[in-house]
């Protein structure tokens, strides 16, 4: 684990690689390694190379805490962390913060909505916003008989209350509301109940195995109604499992993924995917993550760290941390850049910059939360495509 070789700067990927959330690790790695590649190709940060270093949090606080402490102790050149998913963030974010290491987390937990930790940064919207957006999507699609089916895991339970509340606020008809135990061997009775409630649409989030089992049993009872899902359904593992259960055509015909809106056609995004193609050595089948917003956000996180270091003229985490919003938030006269290389050049010329990344503009509030708008995406011709964008008025109505 001695990556602290001459002059390299370590960005830790601190996520689960094993256990139920084992997809978190590869997902974040698919963001980190392209950034590493592009930054180093542009000459590195202040003469240093960036190195991504995966550590398994096992998705469990009791395992994550010693792993985090070991990581901090054994990696003197640790400059930033991608990590602390919803499974471990509350336990490990304080540890990194205490060591003055900036943490870019993908947790959706509401407990970080008003985080006062100076080292905590969150690019993606928190879970409740996600839940509300899913309800808003049902309204927008004109689907009035709504069922909600959420797993009892922490990630799904983050967005479930807001989704259910949103359905009521929007005067939609909530025909049934199910919390299902994840990883069960069958859900036939739950499915039977759902089918007899005859929903037009199911708003749902659950892990791959649970969703696959549930939907396959639902299909056995007849046709599957429309589905409103969240970015989890864009994870390759989820799609693989559910397609195995109900077939690709069924899934693609029904699934409306409500995801943080990032127009994945920008220069920043194209730069990211071009680099993603080349990291097959570090991440298996990297292109499976090409439209995964968590990966995209993690890519942006590393670029932001590097730009902040350039702007601060320092690789010291404590120093560059305060420069993070200065390279992302809009300011008068700032040059909008979409890649690390462009940002580095602009900064070298003494200009102010605003990095608009692959996930879109990143505007941190005073609690270091950014958050995006939301769009409804559908899977067509081998890719996710935006079918409509939810306006902020539409989302607000759900709260």
């Amino acid at each position, binding site marked *: 684990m001695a990556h602290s070789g001459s002059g390299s700067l370590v960005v830790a990927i601190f996520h689960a690689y*094993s256990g139920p959330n084992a997809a978190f690790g590869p997902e974040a790695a698919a963001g980190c390694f392209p950034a590493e590649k592009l930054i180093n190709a542009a000459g590195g940060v202040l003469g240093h190379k960036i190195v991504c270093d995966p550590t398994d949090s096992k998705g469990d606080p009791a395992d994550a805490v010693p792993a985090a402490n070991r990581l901090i102790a054994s990696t003197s050149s640790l400059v930033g962390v991608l990590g602390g998913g919803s499974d471990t963030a509350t336990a490990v974010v304080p540890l990194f913060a205490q060591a003055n290491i900036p943490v870019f987390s993908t947790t959706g937990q509401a407990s970080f909505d008003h985080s006062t930790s100076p080292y905590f940064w969150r690019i993606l919207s928190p879970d409740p916003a996600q839940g509300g957006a899913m309800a808003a999507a049902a309204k927008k699609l004109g689907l009035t008989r709504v069922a909600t089916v959420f797993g009892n895991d922490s990630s799904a339970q983050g967005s479930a209350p807001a989704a259910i509340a949103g359905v009521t606020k929007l005067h939609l008809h909530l025909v049934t509301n199910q919390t299902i135990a994840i990883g069960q061997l069958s859900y036939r009775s*739950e499915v039977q*109940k759902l089918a007899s409630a005859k929903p037009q649409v199911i708003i749902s989030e659950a892990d791959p*195995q649970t969703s696959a089992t549930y939907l396959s*049993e639902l299909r056995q009872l007849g046709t599957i109604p429309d589905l409103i899902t969240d970015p989890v359904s864009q994870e390759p593992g989820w799609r*693989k499992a559910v397609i*195995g259960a109900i077939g690709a055509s069924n899934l693609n015909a029904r699934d409306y993924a409500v995801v943080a809106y990032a127009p994945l056609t920008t220069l920043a995004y194209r730069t990211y995917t071009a680099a993603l193609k080349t990291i097959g050595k570090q991440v298996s089948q990297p292109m499976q993550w090409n439209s995964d917003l968590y990966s995209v956000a993690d890519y942006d996180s590393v670029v932001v760290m590097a730009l902040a270091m350039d702007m601060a003229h320092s690789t010291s985490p404590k120093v560059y941390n305060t420069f993070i919003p200065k390279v992302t938030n809009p300011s008068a006269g700032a040059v909008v850049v979409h890649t690390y290389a462009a940002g580095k050049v602009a900064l070298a010329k003494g200009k102010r910059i605003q990095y608009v990344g692959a996930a879109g503009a990143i505007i941190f509030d005073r609690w270091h939360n950014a958050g995006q708008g939301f769009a409804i995406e559908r899977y067509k011709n081998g890719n996710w495509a935006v079918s409509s964008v939810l306006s902020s008025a539409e989302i607000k109505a759900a709260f």
Partner: protein
Amino acid sequence: MGVLMSAIGFGIVTASILAVSSVGFTLQFSVTNVFNLSFGSVMTGTGFIAYALNTSGVSIWASMAIGALCGGVISVALNWLIFGRFIRHGISRFGMVIVTIATGLICDNTIQAFVGPTFYAYNAQPGKAFNLAGMLLTGQELIIIVIAAVMMTATHVGLKSTRLGAAMRGLSVNASLARACGVPTRRVVAVAWFASGVMAGIGSVALFLDTSTFAATTGSQFLIMVIAAAVLGGVGSAEGAVVGALVVGLATEITAAYWNPELKDVVAFVVLILVLLVRPQGMFSQLSSERTAVG
């Protein structure tokens, strides 16, 4: 009534899958007296062998059959490599439980290291759903029920009317006397392990079809249900295992339909504990409580 009938239908499907696995578990246990907590790993292993066959174009039922035979071989190999040796090494039954659980952990995690922490699904269509007296069952589920019924009948006939079956039953109650009768105990023990592996294989493919996705830990996750059904019926009794499977299958589905689906497994386990409080040997067991293991 509709809800009850469909819950019963689902219960029968769960029970069929459970029954095949539970009888496999109990048969091997009754003959060898090894409480085999690595049974779930054999299930997972055969499930993945069937997956490899299935994804290379073999039909799911043929994959099930070939996978089941491989399961038998794996099961015999585990006994030959590990369990039998430990028994002849003089380990206590108590220690044997730990040996099997350690073996299960090693196998599961070796599988996991190869397949990774992701999910897999067979390439098979569940077929159209049939409505039988209010029970909605797919073609696939009906085939599973038929396979289970055939397996149970074959096991019953095999145990009751063949010499080998009599030898197994004899070995299960008195190993040293069976040896004194000239029963080739090691061969019979190997047959028991083989049969148990075959049933683990059939049970696992049926299970993985039913859950539609599976991972490296699905077999071991299901194992607790399998053992619950076996212990409920009385370990060592094949009929007991079938009844135990029915009780567990119906209890879970009826709980899910009428009460709280999240607690359906809990209800099955509480039934198990209550039965053991009243009858410590389980519902149908005829086995004496203290026997030594046979390898």
